[in-house]
């Protein structure tokens, strides 16, 4: 009997024109949490998709409990006890928790009718076993992201999976929710379940993982016990170089006020927000998910109607009714949800780059294609976007590179005010540092930047001032020199804890 529950040996996966995985070996011990790390495009997800049968391996072997197995599709993976929780949750939002868990394998009575009673009973048993406090009859739509995540985990466990793969399970969770997830993972581990854990969050990895395997550019770099590694070592293994500074903030002169917001309100989402943004300044916008921070910038950008208040740019009141007006007034927005509101997946890198700026390429009635190409080339180079060519569809790029294209799109409009909402969510450390340095350079050029982020180190490291939000109300503006984790946390979670306890 092998000491490993799972061995993937010399796995190669070639896509037309791309060698995504080049001979990776992954060995996982039973009952451990095995971290799989690497930058975007390193081949983590591709490797896992080979394991659960979404992709067919070009070469290589999968050995389960010492026996070589053939995994042709997800069904055969599940029957072998391997299941995966994807980064994008796949739920049927209008159906109940129980129906989602047993989807496609509902317990039957009389051979063809769904046995709802039994389904509910099974669900209750399952949720109880996992210490999850969820009502089986609740419609999925009404659950928080964290609870939805838990339902997905329960579903994975319900297949009696020995190996559960989790792809960035915490990317949309708050700190409290993450800790809850970790308790569930500990629980699974005690029951002998093996977990392969993919994440970009370093502190999490060291909190939860027993062993870590690092991939880079489709190749295996190192596998080791977590106790032999630390964050800096891990980062240098992932990127193949030492990152000198994560938040390269340039101290620059704060200039004239450029944007002024007075008593801004939008329905129930937030009310009475007032602040000024100056040239050369990065204003951090901190708050928990649901505190109204995204809604504020959406209102300024015209995506959401304001019910009250005024917005001034360079001292003059403006009436912004849509993104078009906002761009005309020199405001650019990098949205939170890259896939839904950012990229246009089927279009080329070039088309995605210039879409906000087309007006400036119109000569007579035609577009100046030559200038479009030159400008795109310039920005792709400036932002170090990795793409085969400008005509490649943006959906074929990794998350970090997609984000850089969106940054290029915003910059090409030459904005005076740049609003970035979670600019580094789900992108790897290398790209993250590049985007941080870019934002701070833009501020140094005299632009005003508003930055929303859920990552405390990012907010603290980048902002000149931090505006804190709690449940739709502004709770303070903290100067860079007075800000630290505790202070900001206090401002954004005031009263939050009580409410959380009531919910439990």
């Amino acid at each position, binding site marked *: 009997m092998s000491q490993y529950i799972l061995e993937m040996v010399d796995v190669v996966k070639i896509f037309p024109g791309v060698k995504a995985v080049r001979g990776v070996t992954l060995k996982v011990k039973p009952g451990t949490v095995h971290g799989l790390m690497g930058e975007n495009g390193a081949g983590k997800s591709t490797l896992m998709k080979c394991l659960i049968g979404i992709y067919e391996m070009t070469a290589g072997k999968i050995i389960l409990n010492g026996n070589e197995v053939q995994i042709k599709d997800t069904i055969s993976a599940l029957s072998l006890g391997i299941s995966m929780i994807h980064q994008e949750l796949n739920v049927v939002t209008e159906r109940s928790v129980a129906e989602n868990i047993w989807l496609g394998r509902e317990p039957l009575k009389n051979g063809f009718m769904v046995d709802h009673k039994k389904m509910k009973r099974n669900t209750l048993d399952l949720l109880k076993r996992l210490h999850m406090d969820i009502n089986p009859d609740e419609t999925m739509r009404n659950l928080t992201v964290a609870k939805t995540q838990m339902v997905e985990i329960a579903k994975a466990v319900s297949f009696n999976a020995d190996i559960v793969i989790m792809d960035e399970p915490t990317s949309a969770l708050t700190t409290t929710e993450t800790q809850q997830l970790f308790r569930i993972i500990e629980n699974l581990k005690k029951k002998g379940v093996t977990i392969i854990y993919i994440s970009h969050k370093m502190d999490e990895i060291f909190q939860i993982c027993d062993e870590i395997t690092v991939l880079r550019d489709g190749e295996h770099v190192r596998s080791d016990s977590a106790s032999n590694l630390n964050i800096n070592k891990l980062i240098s293994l992932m990127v193949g170089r030492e990152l000198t500074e994560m938040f390269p903030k340039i101290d620059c002169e704060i200039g004239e006020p450029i944007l002024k917001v007075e008593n801004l309100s939008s329905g129930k989402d937030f009310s009475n927000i007032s602040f000024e943004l100056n040239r050369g300044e990065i204003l951090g916008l901190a708050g928990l998910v649901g505190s109204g921070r995204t809604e504020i910038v959406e209102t300024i950008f015209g995506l959401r109607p304001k019910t009250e208040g005024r917005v001034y740019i360079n001292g003059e009141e403006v009436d912004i009714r849509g993104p*078009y007006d906002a761009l005309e007034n020199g405001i650019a927005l990098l949205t939170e949800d890259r896939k*839904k509101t950012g*990229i*246009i997946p*089927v*279009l080329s890198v070039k088309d995605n780059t210039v879409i906000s700026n087309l007006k400036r390429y119109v000569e007579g009635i035609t*577009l100046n294609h030559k200038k479009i190409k030159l400008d795109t080339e310039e920005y792709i180079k400036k932002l170090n976007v990795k793409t085969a060519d400008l005509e490649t569809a943006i959906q074929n790029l990794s998350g970090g590179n997609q984000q850089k294209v969106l940054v290029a799109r915003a910059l090409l409009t030459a904005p005076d005010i740049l609003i970035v909402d979670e600019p580094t969510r789900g992108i790897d450390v290398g790209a993250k540092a590049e985007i941080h340095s870019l934002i701070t350079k833009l501020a140094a050029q005299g632009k005003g930047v508003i930055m929303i982020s859920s990552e405390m180190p990012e907010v603290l490291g980048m902002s000149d001032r931090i505006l804190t939000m709690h449940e739709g109300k502004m709770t303070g503006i903290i100067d860079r020199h007075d800000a630290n984790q505790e202070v900001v946390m206090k401002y954004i979670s005031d009263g939050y804890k009580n409410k959380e306890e009531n919910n439990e």
Partner: protein
Amino acid sequence: MNNIQEFLKIVSKNSIYIVLALLIIGITIVSPNFLSVANIINLFTTESLKGLLALGVAFCILSKGIDLSVGSIVALSAVVSASLIQDPSYSAQLFPGLDMPISIGVPVSVFAGVIAGTAFGVINGYLIAFTKIPPFIATLGSMVVARGLAMLYTNAYPVPMLKPEFKSIGQGAIFGIPNLLLILIVFAFIAWFLLNQTQFGKNVYAIGGNEVAAKVAGVKIKKNLVFIYTWSAFCAAVAGVLLASRTGSGIATLGVAYELDAIAAATIGGVSHSGGVGRIGGVIAGILILGVVNNGLLLLGVSPYIQQIVKGSIIVSAVVFDMRKHAKAA
């Protein structure tokens, strides 16, 4: 190795033209008459009107919409246009005694027909842009309403006996090339130009690719949607006037199910119903594939019922093939 890969890439990218070429070669071998000048001209003239519709509908599909009303718009434009250019010697003239001189009558009737049809596109566009109802529903409604208006306008009687000068538009030819074909070529060029050379075209692709993202990127969604449906109806209206001119009469039942042929041609030509993907070259190839199949089966003496079965199968296979291709690339 690289050369082979490069070659396969080119083949895969242009598979639609290769299919068309193979079809033509195949049919020519079985029925050498196919490549005769007369037959080719006949083929083009038969397909040119549906081709016009396809060029319009392709824009709607590209923006992730659809236009079901174009067949009815053909009828409405045909009867409006015909009613203004009837020969006064016809006893049952729709407007008894109406007899404009040719130099005024022809332009007026063409213009009126085009305006009547295009107006429906403007309505479609506003409905879709401002009420946010799905294009399928909006244009389904206009399809029924436009057909009803055409019936009401003519009392369901044909509007025949059109003046020869009007008929010569659709029946004439320049240097042996039928006017209808020339007009199709001009419209194909305009469609290509709009899509590839103008800001409007880029916006159409962006709206189809991801409407929310396009909006955030500053694309004026409503304005562009109105343009898209207006263009589609304009193409249909021109086709309607030409059809009246070619057949020498305006009938309220003209163009029934034309919208389906137009959608089929665009679809076969690789215009994706998920939006954002498609080329005018493909649409033209799609039109020709349908035309060549129709014409070829006719030459071979195959029953028209079998022709329909073949056509339906081609539509489905084309989409299956196309999706496979894209699934592999992803």
